C-alpha cells in the first residue's frame, strides 16, 4: 500500500476514533492526545508490518489502551470523582442504551461541532479542527500558520482545556443550537480555505495545502449532511474559486485580474464538479450566502471569455446576496457588476453611495472608481484614482498592479 493511501486512511479514521473514544470514556482533551499517539503508532508500524485486518478497530483499541494509561496517571494526581461529579450530568454517567442509534459518521460530525465550540477564538477553532478532524500533526499546523510548534501546542492545549471546562457533553447540539454551530463550522472551514487561497502577502508553498485540506473536510461534512444546501454551497464555492488558482498569478508572481487570466489554466474538472453541485442545490430554494457566492463564481467560471461573462445574472445574484447581508464588500462587488451589465455611469452612481457611507476606507473603492472612469473614457480621472488607490494599498503586488495601471494611462 503506498504511503499516501496510509495517510488517507489515517486521516479519515482520526475523527472516527476520537468520536468512539469520547463517546465511551468522555475526556475530550485526554482522548485527543491518545488518538494522536495511536495515529503515530499506526504511521510507524503499518508500513513495515502491514495493514491490520480491521484498521479502525486496531486504532480504537490502541487509543483506548493509551487513554486508560493516561487517565490512570491523571487519577493518581487528582481526585477524579469530585471533578466528574461536578462536571457530568447524572444521565451521562450511564452507558448509552444498546439500541441507541448512532453511526460512526455522526461521531465525526459531533467532533467537528466540538472543535468549533463558541467559547474558542477562530484561531483555536481552526487549529483544533485541523488536528482533531483533519488528523494533521501539531508540527504541520504550526508550519502552515508560520508559528513555532510550541505556540501551536499551547494554543491547542488551551482550546482543549476550554472545551473540558465548558462541561459540554459529547452529543449532538440541540436543534436550535445546531444551526448556529453549523454556521460556525462552515465559517471555520471557509477561513481555512481562504488562509490557503489568499496568501498574497508572501508566496508560500505550504499554504495551498490548507485550501486542499479545507476542501477535503467540507467534502466530508457534505457526506454527513447531504441535505444541507449551505454545506453543498460552500463546497461548490471552494471548488469554483480554487479552480482558478493557477491562473491567478503570472510568471513573476504578479496578480492577474480575472479578466486577463488564461482560462485554459483553469481546472475544468473542478469547475464541472462545482457547477454540478450548485445546480443541484439552488433549485431547492432558500439559497444562503455560500450558495449565492458559489452561483456567482459558477457564472464567472462558465464564461468562455471575460467578454462573454453573463453580468446581468451576476448582478441579479449580488442583489439577492445584498438583501441577505448588508456588507460593504458585497455592495462594492454589486456596483462593479452593475457597471459591467448596465454601463459605467450606473456603477459610479452606486459607488458614490458606498463612498459616502465610508465603511470601506482601504484602496478598494478607489480602485473600482479608477476602473469605472477608464471604462467611461476619462483617462485623467482614472489615472488620479489609480494613483490614490495605489497609495492606500497594503500589499506590494496590489501596489505594483495599481501603479502599473496608472502609468499606462499617461
Amino acid at each position: 500500500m503506498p504511503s499516501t493511501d496510509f495517510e488517507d486512511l489515517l486521516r479519515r479514521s482520526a475523527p472516527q476514533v476520537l468520536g468512539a473514544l469520547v463517546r465511551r470514556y468522555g475526556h475530550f482533551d485526554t482522548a485527543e492526545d491518545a488518538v494522536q499517539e495511536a495515529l503515530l503508532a499506526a504511521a510507524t508500524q503499518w508500513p513495515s508490518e502491514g495493514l491490520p485486518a480491521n484498521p479502525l478497530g486496531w486504532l480504537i483499541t490502541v487509543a483506548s489502551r493509551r487513554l486508560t494509561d493516561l487517565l490512570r496517571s491523571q487519577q493518581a494526581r487528582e481526585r477524579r470523582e469530585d471533578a466528574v461529579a461536578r462536571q457530568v450530568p447524572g444521565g451521562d454517567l450511564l452507558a448509552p442504551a444498546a439500541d441507541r442509534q448512532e453511526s460512526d459518521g455522526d461521531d465525526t460530525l459531533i467532533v467537528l461541532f466540538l472543535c468549533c465550540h463558541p467559547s474558542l477564538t477562530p484561531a483555536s477553532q481552526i487549529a483544533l479542527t485541523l488536528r482533531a478532524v483533519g488528523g494533521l500533526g501539531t508540527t504541520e499546523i504550526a508550519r502552515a500558520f508560520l508559528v513555532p510548534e510550541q505556540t501551536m501546542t499551547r494554543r491547542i492545549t488551551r482550546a482543549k482545556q476550554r472545551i473540558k471546562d465548558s462541561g459540554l457533553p459529547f452529543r449532538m447540539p440541540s436543534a436550535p443550537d445546531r444551526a448556529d454551530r453549523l454556521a460556525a463550522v462552515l465559517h471555520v472551514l471557509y477561513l481555512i480555505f481562504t488562509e490557503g487561497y489568499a496568501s498574497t502577502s508572501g508566496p508560500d508553498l505550504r499554504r495551498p495545502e490548507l485550501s486542499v485540506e479545507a476542501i477535503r473536510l467540507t467534502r466530508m461534512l457534505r457526506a454527513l449532511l447531504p441535505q444541507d444546501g449551505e454545506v453543498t454551497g460552500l463546497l461548490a464555492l471552494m471548488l469554483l474559486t480554487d479552480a482558478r488558482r493557477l491562473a491567478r498569478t503570472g510568471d513573476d508572481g504578479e496578480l492577474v485580474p480575472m479578466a486577463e487570466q488564461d482560462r485554459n489554466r483553469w481546472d475544468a474538472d473542478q469547475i464541472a464538479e462545482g457547477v454540478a453541485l450548485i445546480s443541484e442545490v439552488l433549485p431547492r430554494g432558500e439559497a444562503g450566502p455560500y450558495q449565492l457566492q458559489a452561483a456567482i463564481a459558477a457564472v464567472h467560471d462558465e464564461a468562455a471569455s471575460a467578454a462573454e461573462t453573463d453580468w446581468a445574472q451576476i448582478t441579479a445574484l449580488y442583489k439577492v446576496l445584498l438583501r441577505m447581508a448588508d456588507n460593504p464588500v458585497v455592495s462594492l462587488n454589486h456596483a462593479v457588476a452593475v457597471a459591467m451589465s448596465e454601463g459605467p455611469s450606473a456603477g459610479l452612481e452606486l459607488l458614490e453611495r458606498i463612498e459616502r457611507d465610508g465603511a470601506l476606507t482601504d484602496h478598494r473603492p478607489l480602485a473600482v472608481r479608477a476602473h469605472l472612469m477608464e471604462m467611461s473614457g476619462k483617462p485623467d480621472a482614472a489615472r488620479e484614482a489609480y494613483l490614490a488607490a495605489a497609495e492606500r494599498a497594503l500589499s506590494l503586488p496590489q501596489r505594483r498592479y495599481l501603479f502599473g495601471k496608472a502609468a499606462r494611462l499617461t
Partner: protein
Amino acid sequence: MKYMIMLYGSQQDYDVQAGKQNDKPSWSAEDIRKMVEHMTSINKDLAESGELVDAQGLAAPALTRRVQFKDGAPVVTDGPYAETTEVIAGFWIVDVSGIDRATEIAARVTLCPGPGGTIGEPSPVDIRPIGEAPSPDDV
C-alpha cells in the same frame, strides 16, 4: 533568547519597489520575486529549525498614523516622520541560542538581492534582545 531583527526602508524605497516613477533604479517584477523568495526562504528555514516566532513586513510609512497625547486629548496626525527618512520596514522575532546566532540570521537578511539581481548597498539591519516579560501564553 528572543531577539528582534529590524530592517529599514524609506518611503522612497517603498515607492521604487511598487513601480512608482523615481530617479533610483527601478525594480522589475522579477526583482521583486527574487526578493520575496529570499525572505521566504529565510522564514521557511527558521520555521523548520523552530527559531521563528514571527516575521512581518510593514506597509509603506506614508500609511502611518501617529497618536499623541497633548493638552489632555489624543492628537492624531498622519505620516509622522518629520525628522527621519528611514523607518522600520519589517522585522523578524526569533527565538535562538544567543546573539551570535541572531547575527548570523541578520547577515543572511542583508544579502537580499536588489534591482537587476545585484546586492548593492543594503541598509543596516539591527538586532535587539526582547525583554523577558511574561507573555499571555504563559499565564
